[in-house]
């Protein structure tokens, strides 16, 4: 069990976050570039000192500036898998994997045997004597995984483990990683900016932005009710922030929408792009939840087309490809958006 309260100031980032990870659990740390994900891992590893806070792993205090406790990285029972693997280029695959065992005092022969077993479990038979430079990206990734796992760490940190891989092998490696993590009895922290990795591998998600936690929950909860623009964009939904006055939602930055549910005070409103019909002319009807705006972007997403409309509020609508031609979306200009009150999900921020 990891209990982390991490506070540290860097020149460009002020990191303040607290979270726990149970043994056997996988916490996915999701956030945009520069949000502090890798910094968090470096702090847990002991490569960056905390300004304040506390890191406790299985009851052992690893770091507590107030008590002047700071175990150096080499004394923390932590395995870290780096985004770019950082395999030792001058050592063979098996020597890389055995490195941690040797450093901790295991005899040469025993370390080698254990390393070979760990490699075999990850399908790396026959690569023992290969140098990292002669291996494929996927093989290097698995060697790095074996190297981090072989010392049986109590906390396993994975920094963007799939980011450097070809799309063609990502799915296979993700499946392998999921099996490895499922068997793991360590507390696992996975850093990623890929929503799919977070959902597929994480038991729980922590979304961070600018060094602070913006949302915590299971992947299902977070994706169903995102609390940040960042996650909403990853999921591909419209997220509006505003103030509810009964059924009327006053959107921050301008615009009013009528919702099916009543509420009061600050509120988030979720609208699926597929639930936003568009037209060139003002639609007939009472004009409720209907507003115009300029087309600012048209993107193909799979077999659907997304249109960004800069109205008040700005919103993204999803239309079938045929509509691009019918509505002459490529010409730009003004488009009307409509939302049925029932299509708006509201929840407190």
């Amino acid at each position, binding site marked *: 069990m990891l209990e982390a309260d991490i506070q540290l100031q860097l020149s460009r980032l002020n990191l303040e976050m607290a979270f726990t990870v149970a043994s056997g659990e996988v916490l996915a740390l999701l956030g945009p570039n520069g949000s502090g994900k890798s910094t968090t891992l470096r702090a847990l*590893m002991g*490569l960056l000192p905390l300004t304040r806070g506390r890191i406790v792993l299985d009851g052992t205090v690893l770091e507590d500036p107030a008590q002047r406790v700071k175990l*150096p*990285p*080499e*004394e923390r029972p*932590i*395995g*870290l898998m*780096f985004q770019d693997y*950082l395999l*030792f*280029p*001058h050592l063979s695959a098996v020597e890389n994997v055995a*490195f*941690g065992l040797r*450093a*901790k005092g295991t005899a040469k022969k025993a370390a080698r045997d254990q390393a070979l077993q760990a490699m075999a479990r990850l399908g790396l038979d026959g690569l023992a004597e290969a140098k990292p430079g002669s291996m494929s990206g996927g093989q290097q990734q698995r060697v790095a995984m074996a*190297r981090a796992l072989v*010392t049986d760490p109590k906390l396993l940190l994975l920094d963007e483990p799939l980011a450097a891989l070809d799309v063609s092998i990502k799915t296979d490696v993700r499946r392998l990683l999921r099996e490895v993590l499922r068997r793991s009895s360590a507390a696992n922290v996975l850093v990623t900016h890929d929503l799919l990795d977070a959902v597929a591998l994480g038991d729980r998600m922590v979304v961070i932005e600018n060094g602070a936690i913006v949302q915590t929950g299971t992947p299902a909860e977070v994706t169903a009710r995102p609390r940040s623009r960042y996650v909403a964009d990853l999921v591909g939904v419209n997220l509006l922030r505003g103030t509810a006055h009964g059924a009327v939602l006053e959107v921050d930055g301008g615009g009013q929408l009528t919702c099916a549910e009543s509420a009061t005070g600050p509120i988030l409103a979720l609208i699926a792009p597929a639930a936003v019909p568009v037209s060139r002319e003002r639609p007939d009807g009472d004009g409720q939840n209907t507003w115009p705006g300029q087309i600012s972007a048209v993107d193909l997403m799979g077999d659907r087309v997304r249109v960004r409309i800069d109205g008040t509020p700005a919103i993204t609508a999803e239309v079938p490809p045929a509509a691009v031609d019918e509505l002459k979306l490529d010409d730009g200009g003004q488009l009307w958006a409509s939302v049925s009150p029932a299509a708006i999900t509201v929840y407190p921020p």
Partner: protein
Amino acid sequence: MDQEKQPFNPLLALLAALAALFFVFPLIGLITGAPWGHMTSVITSKTSLDALGLSIVASLASTVIALALGFPLAWLLARGRFRGKGLVRGLTTLPMVLPPVVGGIALLLAYGRRGFIGQPLDKATGISLPFTLAGVIVAESFVAMPFFVITAESGLRSMNRRLEDAARSLGAKRWTVFRRVTLPLIWPSLVAGTVLTWARALGEFGATITFAGNLPGVTQTMPLAIYISQSSGQLDQAIALSLVLVVVSLVVMIFRRRAAGGG
């Protein structure tokens, strides 16, 4: 990935050939001009053997000093954070561009019998550097050590330091990290720096003759013996000794390639 094949460029080839020949011709001159008939007697003369022995001892000693003192300096220049680092780097690498004679004069003024360090040293311990083998070693170290410092520093700078983080994350203590990660990764730079330093020390002339003088059997190294032979009309001896230095240098070059390649 295969590189695109370079198309044949006659001008480029001509200039490159000229450059190569420029280096080959003097070597041919040495070989054809050598007194092959009485080579053995020239080389085994007392003057020659003394000079060769002195050269080898002094160049090896100054290389060892360059490694022992130069590596910590290179380490701090590459990784330390202190004020005036640029100045320190500039001053310690100055001998590379300084005319060696100037170096010799400067050494005299510092470590000479009347130098501001040499004089108190002489008074306190009776040790005097000029006109001794120790003086030769000091002169050679002064001129050659910078080659080791900058090569080692650039090796330390160009290695990926995050590999050391990786080693620490695997439980390696600082010494283990150094021995098993840092050292192997900068090894080729260290070998190259050592060879450059040694070669520079072996060929040292100006600083040596200025600071340590030219006493046969005491401070007369090979370059000094060659120069003296040549200027006193014993051209055969000069050529023969030169060839010996060429052979020694070639052997070291070959050894260096093996050592650096073998990691």
